[in-house]
C-alpha cells in the first residue's frame, strides 16, 4: 500500500503536468481536442490523488507504523475516528489533503461546465488550477512525502497530541482547508478573464457560489477553531490572535470585502479592477497564511515549527504575486470602467468605505502578525505581538465596520433620498439610543462594550425593521398570513435575506464578544472534598473524586455541585487526563452554558488527598458568539441557493 500511495502521487503529478502541456498546446493551436484531452488528464489526476489519499487513510487505519508520518501521529490505542483524522494532523498529510480537495474542486468545475462548450476562458481556468495543483503535488512527491518510511518497524506509534483528540479535529482543519482551497476557483476565473480580456461580470456570476461557499467554509473553520480552543485549551478564551489564527482571519476579511464589491460589479458594472485586486489578494493571502504556518518564521501555539517548506511557498507566492500584478497592469485599460453615483450617500459609497475598513483590519492584523520579523530585522529585537495589541488596534475598526453593516444594506443604490434615510434609519437609531441608555442605567460603563451593544442594537434594528416592513407589504399584496409571508419572503428573496441573516449573526457575535470580554469573572481556589467556592451568583461544591481508565487515557474526575441562591441547580465534572504516550497531563474543561452565561471550570492541579485546584470563570453571553456564527453560516448558505428564475 505504501508503494501504491507513492505511485499514485507520482501519477497525479504526471497527469497534472501532462494536462497543463495539453491545455497550453490546445490554446496555442486553437485545438479543442487538445483542450478536451487536457481536461481528461485533470480528471485522471483527480482519481490518482484520491487513490493516494485512500492509501494514506488505509495505512493509518491499519496501524502501519513503518510509515514515518503514521508513526508520528497515531498509535494502536487511538480511537478509530481519531486515526482517520490524524490524516491531517501533520504537515505532510495536510498537503495531501489540500492536493486531494483541489483536484476534486477541479473535477467539480469541469463537471459544472459539462453542458457548456468551452469558451476562450475555461482552458485558462483549468490551467491556473492545474498549476496550483502541480505545486502541491510536487511538494508531496519531492519534498514532503507522507509515504516516507522508517528503516525499522516500531512496535507502536507516538500517538496523537491529546489536544487534537477532540471532535474539533474532525471538522476544524478540513473546513479551513476547504475555504482556502475554494478561493483557487474564483482566482483562476479572474486570471483567465484578465488574460482573455473578458471585461463582463461573467466570471463573477460563475464563481459567486464558489466565493460565498469558500467564505462559509473559512468562517466555519475559524469558528470551530475558536470553539475547539475554548473547550480544549482551558484558558477560558476562544481567540488569541495567534499567528496561525490570524493567517486564516486575514483572507477572511479580504474575501468579505470581495463578496461585497462583487455585488456592485454585478449590479452596476463598476469596480472591475478592484475586484480583480481583491480576488488575487484573497488567494495570495491564503497561500501567505500557509507560508507563515509552514515556514516556522513565527512562533505559534499551533507549533508547526520550521518545516523546510517555507522557501517553496515563498517562491510560489512571489510567482503568483508578480504574475497577478503583471496581468492586472496589462489589462487595466480594458477593465477600467468609470462609475457613477448621484450622491455621497449611496449604497456604493457604504460598500466602498466598508472595503476601506475591512482592508485596514486585514492590514492591521497582517502588520501585527509579521511585526516580530520586521522588528527583528530593523532593531535586532524580536518583540512579541499578542492579544492586547490586536484588541487595542482592531476594536475601533470593528466598531466602524459594525456601523456600516447597519447602514449599507438599507441605503439606496446611486442616491439615498432624505425620505429613504428617515424611513430606514429612524427606528433603528431610536432602538440603538434606547439600548445605549438602558445599558448605562444598568451599569455598563466600559466604553467599547457600550458602543458595541449600541451598534449591535442598531444593526439588529435595521434588519428587524426591514423584515417587518417587507412582511407587511407582502401581506397586503398577497393576503398571506404573517408567518406565511415571513417564510415566503425568506425563501423568495433568499439572497437578500441571506445577507441580512449574516449581518444579524454578526451583531449577535459582537454582543457575545463584548459581554464576555468586558464582564468576565475569574477566580482560582484550592478545595478539599466538601469545601466550596463562590463566583458571581454561583457556588461550586467539591462533592466527589474518581479515577477510571477509558480508551487511551487515565481520567481523574472531580464532581462539583453547582448552587445558586442555596439551591442545587446542576452538576459539573472537571477532568485531568493522562494520555498514553503524552508527556504532560491535560485538563478537560467543564462548561455549563446558558443564554445568560457560561460557567467554565478547569482543574489545573490535583494535590495530596485529592485536594483539587479549580480555575473558574463566568463568561457572560458567550453562547451568543456560537449562535451568531451559526446564523452567519445559515445566512451564507441561504444566499447561495440558486433561484429557479436565475437558472431559467
Amino acid at each position, binding site marked *: 500500500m505504501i508503494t501504491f500511495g507513492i505511485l499514485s502521487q507520482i501519477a497525479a503529478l504526471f497527469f497534472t503536468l501532462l494536462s497543463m502541456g495539453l491545455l497550453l498546446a490546445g490554446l496555442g493551436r486553437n485545438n479543442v481536442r487538445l483542450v478536451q484531452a487536457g481536461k481528461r488528464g485533470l480528471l485522471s489526476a483527480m482519481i490518482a490523488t484520491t487513490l493516494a489519499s485512500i492509501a494514506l487513510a488505509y495505512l493509518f487505519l491499519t496501524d502501519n507504523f513503518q510509515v514515518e508520518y503514521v508513526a508520528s501521529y497515531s498509535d494502536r490505542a487511538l480511537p478509530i475516528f481519531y486515526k482517520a483524522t490524524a490524516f491531517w494532523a501533520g504537515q505532510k498529510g495536510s498537503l495531501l489533503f489540500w492536493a486531494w480537495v483541489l483536484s476534486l474542486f477541479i473535477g467539480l468545475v469541469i463537471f459544472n461546465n459539462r453542458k457548456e462548450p468551452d469558451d476562450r476562458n475555461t482552458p485558462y481556468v483549468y490551467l491556473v488550477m492545474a498549476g496550483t495543483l502541480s505545486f502541491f503535488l510536487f511538494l508531496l512527491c519531492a519534498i514532503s512525502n507522507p509515504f516516507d518510511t522508517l528503516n525499522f518497524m516500531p512496535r507502536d506509534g507516538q500517538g496523537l497530541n491529546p489536544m487534537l483528540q477532540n471532535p474539533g479535529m474532525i471538522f476544524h482543519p478540513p473546513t479551513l482547508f476547504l475555504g482556502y482551497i475554494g478561493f483557487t476557483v474564483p482566482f483562476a476565473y479572474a486570471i483567465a478573464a484578465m488574460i482573455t480580456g473578458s471585461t463582463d461580470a461573467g466570471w463573477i456570476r460563475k464563481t459567486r457560489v464558489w466565493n460565498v461557499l469558500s467564505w462559509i467554509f473559512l468562517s466555519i473553520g475559524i469558528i470551530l477553531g475558536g470553539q475547539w480552543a475554548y473547550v480544549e485549551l482551558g*484558558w*477560558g*478564551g476562544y481567540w488569541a490572535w495567534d499567528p496561525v489564527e490570524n493567517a486564516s482571519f486575514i483572507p477572511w476579511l479580504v474575501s468579505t470585502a470581495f463578496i461585497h464589491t462583487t455585488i456592485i460589479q454585478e449590479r452596476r458594472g*463598476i469596480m472591475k479592477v478592484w475586484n480583480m485586486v481583491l480576488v488575487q489578494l484573497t488567494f495570495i493571502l491564503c497561500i501567505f497564511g500557509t507560508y507563515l504556518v509552514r515556514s516556522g518564521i*513565527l512562533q*505559534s*501555539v499551533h507549533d508547526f515549527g520550521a518545516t523546510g517548506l517555507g522557501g517553496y511557498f515563498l517562491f510560489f507566492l512571489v510567482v503568483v504575486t508578480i504574475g497577478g500584478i503583471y496581468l492586472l497592469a496589462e489589462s487595466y485599460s480594458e477593465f477600467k470602467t468609470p462609475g*457613477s*453615483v*448621484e*450622491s*455621497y450617500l449611496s449604497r*456604493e459609497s457604504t460598500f*466602498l*468605505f466598508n472595503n*476601506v*475598513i475591512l*482592508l*485596514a483590519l486585514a*492590514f*492591521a492584523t497582517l*502588520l*501585527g502578525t509579521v*511585526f516580530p520579523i520586521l522588528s527583528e530585522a530593523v532593531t535586532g*529585537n524580536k*518583540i*512579541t*505581538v*499578542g*492579544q*492586547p495589541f490586536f484588541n*487595542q488596534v482592531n476594536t475601533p*475598526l470593528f466598531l466602524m465596520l459594525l456601523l456600516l453593516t447597519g447602514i449599507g444594506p438599507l441605503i439606496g443604490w*446611486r442616491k439615498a433620498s432624505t425620505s429613504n434615510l428617515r424611513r430606514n434609519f429612524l427606528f433603528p437609531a431610536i432602538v440603538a439610543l*434606547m*439600548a445605549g441608555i*438602558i445599558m448605562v442605567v*444598568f451599569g455598563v*460603563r*466600559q466604553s467599547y462594550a457600550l458602543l458595541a451593544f449600541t451598534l449591535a*442594537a442598531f444593526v439588529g434594528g435595521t434588519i428587524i425593521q426591514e423584515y417587518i416592513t417587507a*412582511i*407587511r407589504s407582502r401581506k397586503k399584496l398577497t393576503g398571506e398570513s404573517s408567518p406565511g409571508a415571513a417564510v415566503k419572503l425568506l425563501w423568495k*428573496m433568499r*439572497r*437578500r435575506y441571506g445577507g441580512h441573516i449574516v449581518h444579524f449573526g454578526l451583531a449577535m457575535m459582537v*454582543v457575545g464578544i463584548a*459581554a464576555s470580554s468586558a*464582564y468576565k*469573572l*475569574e477566580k*482560582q481556589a484550592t478545595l478539599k472534598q466538601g469545601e466550596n467556592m463562590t463566583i*458571581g*451568583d454561583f457556588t461550586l461544591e467539591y462533592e466527589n473524586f474518581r479515577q477510571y481508565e477509558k480508551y487511551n487515557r487515565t481520567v481523574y474526575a472531580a464532581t462539583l455541585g453547582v448552587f445558586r441562591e442555596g439551591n442545587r441547580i446542576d452538576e459539573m465534572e472537571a477532568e485531568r487526563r493522562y494520555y498514553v504516550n503524552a508527556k*504532560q497531563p491535560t*485538563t478537560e474543561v467543564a462548561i455549563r452554558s446558558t443564554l445568560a*452565561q457560561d460557567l467554565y471550570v478547569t482543574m*489545573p492541579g490535583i494535590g495530596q488527598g485529592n485536594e483539587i485546584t479549580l480555575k473558574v470563570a463566568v463568561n*457572560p*453571553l458567550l453562547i451568543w458568539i456560537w449562535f451568531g456564527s451559526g446564523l452567519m453560516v445559515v445566512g451564507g448558505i441561504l444566499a447561495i441557493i440558486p433561484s429557479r428564475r436565475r437558472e431559467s
Partner: protein
Amino acid sequence: MSRKDSMFIAAILVLLTTLLLPATGIAELTETEVSESLICYACPGEPLNIDRCSGGNQMRDVIKKMLAEGKSKAEILDYFVGQFGDSILTTVPKKGFNLIAYTGPFIGLLVGFPVAFLVLRRWGSAGRKQSAEQTSSEAVASLDDEMRLRIEKELSEMDEED
C-alpha cells in the same frame, strides 16, 4: 404589526439582553488579567494565560505572590520586563520603531478614506452628467406605458436579488 408594536418588542429585547449581563462590574485584578499581558519565558510566542508548562507555572506563582502583596498590574509587568526585557510582554511597547505597528493601520485609513472620497467624487460628477443627459433625452422621447411597466417589473425583480 404597527411601528409602536415593533418599538415595544425591540425595547423588551434590549432590556432582556441587559438583564442577562452580570450586575457586577469588572472584578478585582486577577492572575489572568496580568498573565494575558505576558509571554511564557520558556515557550516563546505563547501567551502565559494559554501556556501550561512548568516554566509558565513559575511565572504564574510569582504573579500570585505579587498580587497577594497588593502590587498593581503595571508593577508586576515592570518586574518581568526588568528580568526578561520587552519581549516578555504581549503588548508592543509604544515607543520607537514599534509606533509603526500602532499607527500603520490608522495611516492606512487616513489614506484609504480620502481615496474613497476621491473615487466617489469622480463617480458623483459622472452620475450628475448621466442624470442631465437622461433628463434631456426623456424630454424628447417619453416611454410608452408598456415599456414603463416592463422596466418597473425588471427593476423590482433586480431588487429582489439584492
